[in-house]
């Protein structure tokens, strides 16, 4: 058996598996924010390294698609490179680093700065799909809490943060209420990115391979970050512009530049940064 060369189906997954995934995705889209259990397959990356996102993308991707893969907002981080190469190898698909040219964007931990359109699908890699997990570790109990819309515990956590720190102390994977019904984890995107999900024209799909859950935010759905009336959700702000392209109002990476710990801020979204910097260069009079 092992003497023969091993060949894989287009998109790596067999067609039955793709069908199973699409059924799960349809259920997810029908119930925004609800975690649909699915029979997560093993794929050639380790669990925790994007297997959920990879399965969702593999179920959707076709020859007409253009794929962008980012990790921490950058196309060139090692895991993004690895996943992009995987899809080139198994699906022969075209790839891009430009957000505005992609039909499918698989991401880990960021939403691109460039606004999305109705033709685009975001696929998020999710490590922990259950927003209540660190408050209630039993799956049997959290399942019941979602079914009965019993979310008091989440607000208790926010209350305790304010009582202790004077602020809500969650900065990423900030819990949201989707379509006014389900409490959802938007994946470990910084809370800065949460507002981008609210009534977005794109389709947002979330895949947790290890925990075996799929969920979705359909286009133009209400996504509300939790807070209190007098302590509302506040996304973080960066005061300084990007040291390379001068953008403000975008999420920044802090780069340490010398032994003394001096640092500078640059755009986390490398595509946005490159294009903004290029546009500036064109504008500079010769």
């Amino acid at each position, binding site marked *: 058996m092992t003497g023969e060369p091993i060949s894989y189906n287009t998109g790596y997954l067999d067609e039955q598996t793709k069908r199973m995934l699409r059924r799960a995705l349809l259920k997810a889209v029908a119930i925004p924010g609800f975690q649909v259990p699915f029979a997560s397959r093993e794929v050639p990356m380790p669990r925790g390294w994007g297997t959920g996102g990879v399965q969702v993308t593999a179920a959707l991707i076709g020859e007409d698609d253009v794929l962008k893969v980012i990790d921490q907002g950058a196309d060139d981080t090692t895991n993004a490179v690895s996943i992009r190469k995987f899809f080139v190898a198994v699906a022969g698909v075209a790839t891009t680093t430009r957000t505005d040219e992609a039909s499918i964007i698989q991401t880990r931990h960021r939403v691109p700065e460039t606004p999305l359109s109705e033709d685009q699908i975001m696929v998020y890699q999710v490590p922990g799909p259950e927003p209540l997990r660190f408050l209630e570790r039993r799956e049997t109990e959290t399942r019941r809490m979602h079914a009965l819309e019993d979310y008091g515990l989440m607000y208790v956590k926010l209350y305790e943060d304010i009582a202790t720190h004077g602020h809500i102390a969650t900065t990423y994977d900030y819990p949201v209420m989707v379509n006014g019904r389900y409490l959802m984890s938007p994946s470990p995107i910084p809370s800065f990115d949460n507002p981008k999900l609210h009534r977005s024209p794109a389709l947002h799909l979330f895949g947790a391979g290890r925990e075996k*859950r799929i969920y979705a935010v359909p286009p133009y759905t209400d996504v509300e970050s939790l807070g209190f009336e007098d302590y509302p959700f506040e996304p973080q702000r960066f005061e300084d512009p990007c040291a390379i392209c001068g953008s403000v109002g975008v999420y920044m990476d802090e780069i340490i530049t010398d032994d003394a710990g001096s640092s500078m801020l640059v755009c986390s979204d490398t595509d946005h940064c490159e294009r903004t910097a290029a546009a500036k260069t064109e504008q500079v009079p010769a």
Partner: protein
Amino acid sequence: MYVAVKGGEKAIANAHALLAKEGRGDSHLPPIDPSWAVGQLAVLVARVMNEGSLYDPELAARAILQAQGDALEAITLVRSFRTTLPRFGYTVPVDTAALPPQRRISATFKDLPGGQQLGATFDYTHRLFTERDTDGPQASPNGADGADAPAMPRVSDLLGHDALVQPARPEHFTDPEPPDLTREPIVFPMERAGRLQALARGDEGFLLSLAYSTQRGYGSTHPFAGEIRVGEVELEFEPPELGFAVPLGRVEVTECQMINQFKGNAATPAQFTRGYGLAFGRAERKAMAMSTVDRALRADEFGERRVAPAQDEEFVISHSDNVEATGFVEHLKLPHYVDFQAELGLVRQLRAEYQQRQELEGREEIDEEVLV
């Protein structure tokens, strides 16, 4: 002027090349052929088959070599391959008593029909480094053809005659088709069939520690090794088109039946209870640990309080899959700087506010002193 970091693609390519070089080792020595590993690393091969959930010794050996000896990496390779294979269905339930075993021992009786047969075991070796023997015994210890092998009925069947031990199947058992964990997501609470599947492919070390814990007071199942068998079993499959079973071949398995403290109450007479373990190849430690943990997880059936980690189904099953475990633990190596940045921002803000409060209080104290 700072230039954005690039070169991830090149870095990966270089890393793969370096990995291949490390894995080859000293190029003056011959590369290991997978067939050598099948024969001479059989126990490791068995582990990779068990936790990879695929019986293919040559493939498992190949995986071990490609993974440069990293068992979990090899298991991941096998799992990734397994997922691409078509699934035809289930075999007919395997009869582990049908073929004469290579090894069969029981701790519960001094002697029993068929006798105690040590087989190939490390059990009574002295753990001293020795020169490797090149040849084993010339004749196989018991006829591999089974011509004059003595009958070796299972201990559990012997005890079962007088209903001293719980029957293998509960009273109203309808024997439904077992679930396939690789095709359906796990939902708690689980049925025993699903749990046994999860345990069969669960990490040997994890199950070993859990089993150990039950012997040290974390839960108390007081097990006896009723029987441990190592030998081949015949696999048969019944295709719907034929309507009768056809043999597919033989696989080597290790089976362990743990017999545990008796239970009984006013309504039912006392009986010994069971734990079951089954693994590919020579995998005694795994089969024993699996059977101990199986019994611990059956707490509800016997009205036992779940007080120990080994009895906590969600805890045990959720953390038994080492491919998931190593994936998630090792994913911490991936960049997390965006979320770290967010935390940095908050910590800085909180510290600044703390400073402000301290200064404010300091000034208030001074004001009070002045007033006084």
